[in-house]
């Protein structure tokens, strides 16, 4: 009998697949990176996803935010994303949370890990502060142009995002390619699976910098 996960179980194993089914992930931001991350986490078989964003689908989003189409213009992203994700499979429970992440943001009580798919460092720092108090790991990615940086703030090797990026500045309308967002999302989703399943070859204590212009990957050890 064919099953949804039969091609990936030989790679990650039954134990990991079951672990994913029992896991809950917060996807912070469902834009360029977040749409890719959330789609892949559903396809991996994560049991429950919280999608958090306060954005509306806008024309410039459509070049890279892969869950949205022209029919969705003007709609709230989290609800469109939930609807599209449920068409892939009903195996994942999806909670759409149309809200801004600010000082008053309440972390869902049952999350195992959060994924940073945000588009500014001010919000990243706020989210990271809240997560750090609960010792919840954060998979971080940021993109611009052809470039991506990724790391996992595991709260053990690295305590907080500001340990690595203490002084990042925010820019508006950051130029970015659809491929950059999708590659970042693909790797973040894989990193979530690695952390949840306890695979040692993850980005805890390491910074991965990807240059899609020259096709170069560089790992920088942070500890």
């Amino acid at each position: 009998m064919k099953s949804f996960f039969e091609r990936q179980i030989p790679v990650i194993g039954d134990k990991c697949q079951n672990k994913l089914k029992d896991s809950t992930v917060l996807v912070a931001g469902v834009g360029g990176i977040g749409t890719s991350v959330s789609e892949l986490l559903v396809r991996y078989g994560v049991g429950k996803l919280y999608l958090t964003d306060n954005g509306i689908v806008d024309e410039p989003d459509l070049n890279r935010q892969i869950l949205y189409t022209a029919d969705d213009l003007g709609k709230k992203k989290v609800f469109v994303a939930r609807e599209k994700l449920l068409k892939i499979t009903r195996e994942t429970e999806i909670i759409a949370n149309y809200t801004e992440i600010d000082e008053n943001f309440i972390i869902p009580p049952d999350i195992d890990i959060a994924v940073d798919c945000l588009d500014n460092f001010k919000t990243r720092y706020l989210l990271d502060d809240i997560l750090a108090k609960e010792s919840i790991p954060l998979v971080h990615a940021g993109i611009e142009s052809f470039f991506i940086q990724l790391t996992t703030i595991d709260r053990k090797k690295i305590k907080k995002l500001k340990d690595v990026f203490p002084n990042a500045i925010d820019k508006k309308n950051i130029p970015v390619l659809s491929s950059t967002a999708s590659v970042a999302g693909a790797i973040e989703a894989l990193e979530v699976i690695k952390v949840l399943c306890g695979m040692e070859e993850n980005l805890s204590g390491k910074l991965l910098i990807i240059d899609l212009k020259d096709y170069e990957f560089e790992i920088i050890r942070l500890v």
Partner: protein
Amino acid sequence: MNKREPGGENFSPPYQYKIKFFTLFKLYFKRDFLVIESERAPLKLFELIEKGSEILGKSLKEKLISKGKLKRGAIILIKGKNVLHLKELETEIYPEDDIVFFPPGGGG
């Protein structure tokens, strides 16, 4: 003698310091690394930036320093540690240290 010190078994002058540039700095400076030679080791970060500016032009210093302090937005890692958590521009750098300069992408 400590091998990290000048005259140690692994190092002798001129000492070489390798700065790696990533992301937009790589595009801006049109190179992915810069090797700086000095008769001294260690060098302080501001000295390294001064020497780098002698090779690349004042744009390096202008990108990184304003009014005697590191500008916001540029990440400088020495052996994986952000210099803002070390001694900022006074951070001592040794020739074998992994030196990384880049501005992080903020988009998502």
